[in-house]
């Protein structure tokens, strides 16, 4: 019985499984602490990673539902496996661009597979008008997260596995 319990706790539905996120954009992986905005670097909005982007295409990092598209198009909220909420915020201070140069390709409620197109943006415009092109990608409901680990470094392409998230087991 003890053995069975051990096995079921390893493989049972209650066991915490890792959720793997692919890079939603291509570019250079940077630590959140390097993001030039305190609300991200201090992890006030959540924990995750950032990408100094090299092109203007954003794809879904995991199978998800679109929970929010900012009216200015510069940020997206996604609901991933097990209720994990992810914020992708293209550039820093991009809210001031008032949507110019951002072309969201999805609507709230839309269900997506990892790799599906979310958003295109004019990288040159962001480069010249925003404070930074560094794009933070953070889990906003960290209360669900047991642990997370960055599993890549340096340059990444869209879809490259970047972050492994282990959820708290549900009691």
């Amino acid at each position, binding site marked *: 019985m003890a053995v069975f319990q051990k096995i079921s706790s390893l493989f049972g539905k209650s066991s915490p499984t890792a959720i793997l996120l692919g890079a939603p954009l291509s570019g250079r992986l940077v630590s959140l602490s390097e993001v030039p905005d305190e609300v991200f670097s201090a992890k*006030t*909005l*959540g924990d995750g990673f950032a990408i100094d982007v090299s092109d203007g295409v954003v794809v879904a990092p995991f199978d998800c539902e679109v*929970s929010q598209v*900012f009216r*200015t198009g510069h940020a997206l909220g996604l609901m991933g496996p097990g209720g994990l*909420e992810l*914020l992708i915020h293209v550039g820093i201070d991009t809210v001031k661009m008032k949507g110019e140069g951002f072309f969201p390709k999805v609507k709230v409620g839309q269900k997506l597979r990892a790799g599906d197109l979310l958003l295109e943006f004019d990288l040159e415009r962001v480069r010249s008008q925003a404070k930074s092109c560094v794009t933070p990608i953070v889990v*906003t409901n960290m209360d669900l997260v047991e642990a997370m680990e960055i599993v890549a470094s340096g340059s990444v392409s869209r879809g490259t596995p970047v972050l492994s998230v282990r959820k708290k087991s549900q009691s």
Partner: protein
Amino acid sequence: MEKTVRILNEEGLHARPAGIFVKKASEFSSVIEVRSGGVSKNGKSIMALMGLSLEKNAEITLVANGPDAEAALKALSELVEKKFQV
């Protein structure tokens, strides 16, 4: 307890103010809700707050229930009135 305030910052309640609001709300044990246009959202959830898409001049009602409700309402309404500057 509840208190109605107005969003004053230029870009409305986008990512940064939502994060600052939730951080402050989470310092209190009371249940915090933000109501706007007949919708009520969890004041301790960043994604829920951003989902309200509140623009400048939007009126919101902060609702707090719990042992520190009064202090929570005071702190949060001040934060909104100060345009989320901390």
